[in-house]
């Protein structure tokens, strides 16, 4: 056992000649800039912990900071990097076996769709004559919008309020009918000196199911990514604690937290800086597996409405994708696939991944236009 405590007892000053409190406060601030939620109210705990473990040792400072400033497993890799950068040298607590994915912030968020110049020939003048402009816009493919139309669609998407279908919860509320509520009935009885007067009833409350959105942000989906992320933002705003949004591409990124900002543009910028694999390739099966291993199997997908937005262009083996979808469909209450190409004339689900996926889906919808997204809201709500 002694070997474990090697570094903890040796009195080596982390950085000699500087006030330790200022040093630690500065470290917390560095960590905050690196993206860990090391809020100032955690700093007193950091100081107390560093004091308890010996602020003079690298080990003591490392563990004091890690235990008090981190809040999730994803923070640990960032913490290690920040610790090494701030105090210099290797991190003492580098444990073998951790391989968290470090998503480095990216300076810009490439949200622009296709250039407006490419759109000159797109609007269909004949159709526009006999339908209202709003109606035309609703039906237009999101990949072929002018800049002004895109702004209007963004505004309308923000008004959607997707929420998953309700389910009966384990909690009760007082009701006029329903089951007899024993504890309230007895309370009534006590109030009348033990004389039975009338019975109290209770009903089950209903709660929305968890909604999990898995958005493909690979290159082939890029014309739709902006609208789908905005759809995700609308869903998170509706039920922040019951909605989870992930992006899939070559890796899995959880963006539920970033999307909690009220303003859609701020939220999308925050999400964009978290996503490292914009417009890259698709490794759908692998990202799905990462989702199931790290989140889904543990309970996030259980009983949830899971919506997978992808065109099904799978680089890997379709059989692998089928295997992961089989797992997902066993966990989820309902599995919905959104494929923007479905709305196009002559579409047949022939892309390797799509064909393999079909047997496991409960719903297969388009999601290529505003109208299709409205339909998706209905599918989710009545799943």
């Amino acid at each position: 056992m002694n070997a474990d405590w090697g570094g903890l007892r040796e009195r080596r000053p982390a950085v000699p000649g500087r006030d330790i409190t200022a040093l630690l406060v500065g470290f917390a601030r560095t960590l905050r800039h690196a993206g860990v939620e090391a809020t100032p109210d955690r700093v007193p705990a950091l100081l107390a912990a560093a004091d308890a473990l010996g602020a003079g040792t690298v080990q003591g400072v490392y563990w004091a900071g890690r235990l008090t400033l981190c809040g999730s497993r994803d923070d640990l890799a960032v913490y290690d990097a920040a610790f090494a950068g701030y105090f210099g040298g290797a991190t003492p607590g580098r444990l073998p076996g951790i391989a968290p994915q470090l998503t480095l912030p990216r300076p810009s968020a490439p949200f622009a769709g296709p250039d407006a110049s490419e759109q000159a020939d797109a609007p269909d003048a004949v159709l526009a004559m006999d339908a209202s402009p709003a109606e035309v816009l609703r039906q237009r493919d999101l990949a072929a919008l002018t800049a002004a139309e895109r702004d209007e669609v963004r505004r309308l998407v923000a008004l959607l309020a997707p929420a998953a279908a309700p389910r009966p919860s384990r909690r009760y509320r007082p009701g006029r009918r329903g089951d007899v509520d024993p504890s309230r009935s007895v309370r009534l009885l006590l109030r009348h000196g033990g004389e039975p007067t009338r019975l109290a009833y209770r009903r089950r409350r209903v709660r929305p199911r968890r909604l999990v959105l898995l958005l493909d942000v690979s290159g082939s989906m890029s014309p739709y990514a902006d609208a789908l992320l905005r759809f995700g933002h609308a869903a998170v705003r509706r039920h922040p604690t019951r909605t989870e949004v992930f992006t899939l591409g070559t890796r899995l990124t959880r963006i539920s937290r970033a999307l909690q900002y009220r303003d859609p543009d701020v939220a999308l910028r925050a999400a964009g800086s978290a996503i490292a694999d914009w417009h890259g390739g698709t490794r759908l099966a692998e990202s799905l597996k990462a989702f199931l291993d790290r989140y889904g199997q543990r309970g996030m997908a259980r009983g949830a409405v899971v919506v997978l937005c992808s065109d099904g262009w799978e680089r890997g083996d379709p059989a692998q994708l089928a295997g992961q979808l089989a797992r997902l469909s066993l966990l989820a209450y309902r599995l919905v696939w959104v494929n923007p190409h479905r709305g196009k004339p002559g579409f047949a689900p022939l892309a390797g991944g799509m064909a393999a996926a079909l047997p496991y889906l409960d719903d297969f919808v388009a999601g290529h236009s505003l109208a299709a997204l409205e339909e998706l809201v209905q599918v989710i709500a009545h799943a």
Partner: protein
Amino acid sequence: MSDGPLDSPASLSQALADAGYLADAPLATAGYLARRLGRPLFLEGDAGVGKTAFAQALATATGAHFVRLQCYEGLDASQALYDWDFPRQILHLRAVEAAALAGGDRPDREELEASLYDRRFLLARPLLQALERNPCVLLVDEIDRADDEFEAFLLEVLSDYAITIPELGRIAAEHPPLTVLTSNRTRDVHDALKRRCLYHWVEHPSFEREVAILRARLPEVTERLAAEVAGATRRMRELDLIKPPGVAESLDWAGALAALGARALDPELAAATLGAVLKYREDADRVRNTGMAALLGG
């Protein structure tokens, strides 16, 4: 709380070892700090890695009572905190009435009411038990299974370690219980709750530690069998399974093998007892395809 012999992470680690739990240095440090700073400890980690057992061992090591609150959806105050024992209250009421009839005088209304809401009719649920017992280790297990209303409620109890019962008044803990929260990360626990806690991610143990755990928990397992079981589960964890085996599973497996009288692990025995360590058919198939001999390091 920093008094007594447990004045360093190393001595807490030793006390945990005496209680049958071999904690690694980071986990012992986390436990020590939680005790020293009086903060709840928030543990996350793969299933079966020993989070719940840690809390139990902590109670044994520090000589404290152990109170466990298993969370589930719909958990509310009457199941987590306290409830009034209505049947006994009614019996009491009837008894007072009967006595009054026999004696001929009417009982005083206010006195009767006060006696109805006496402490003896209060059923203490885990959180109240943890406040009343001293010293105490409180385990709030799988907090992510409870709903967010409960989290807010727990936050209130954990912030001042006191509760107010309208009929009785405020009940405060003399010494705050040492609180351990565990989560499997099925949903994000609210930041306000995490902020109050020390956070630690529990890793799978190293090979040497796992052998030591098997030997300590199951004295009937031979040194060789323990090493082979630890080696095989280690290789299974690298196989990319749906549910990689945790320490709990390797303990089950070693126990099953020992029950069959095995002194060493061979491919036939391993195949016959695979159900003790792998709980998915796909995982078992995968391990069989990899080959039992390869699993045993042959």
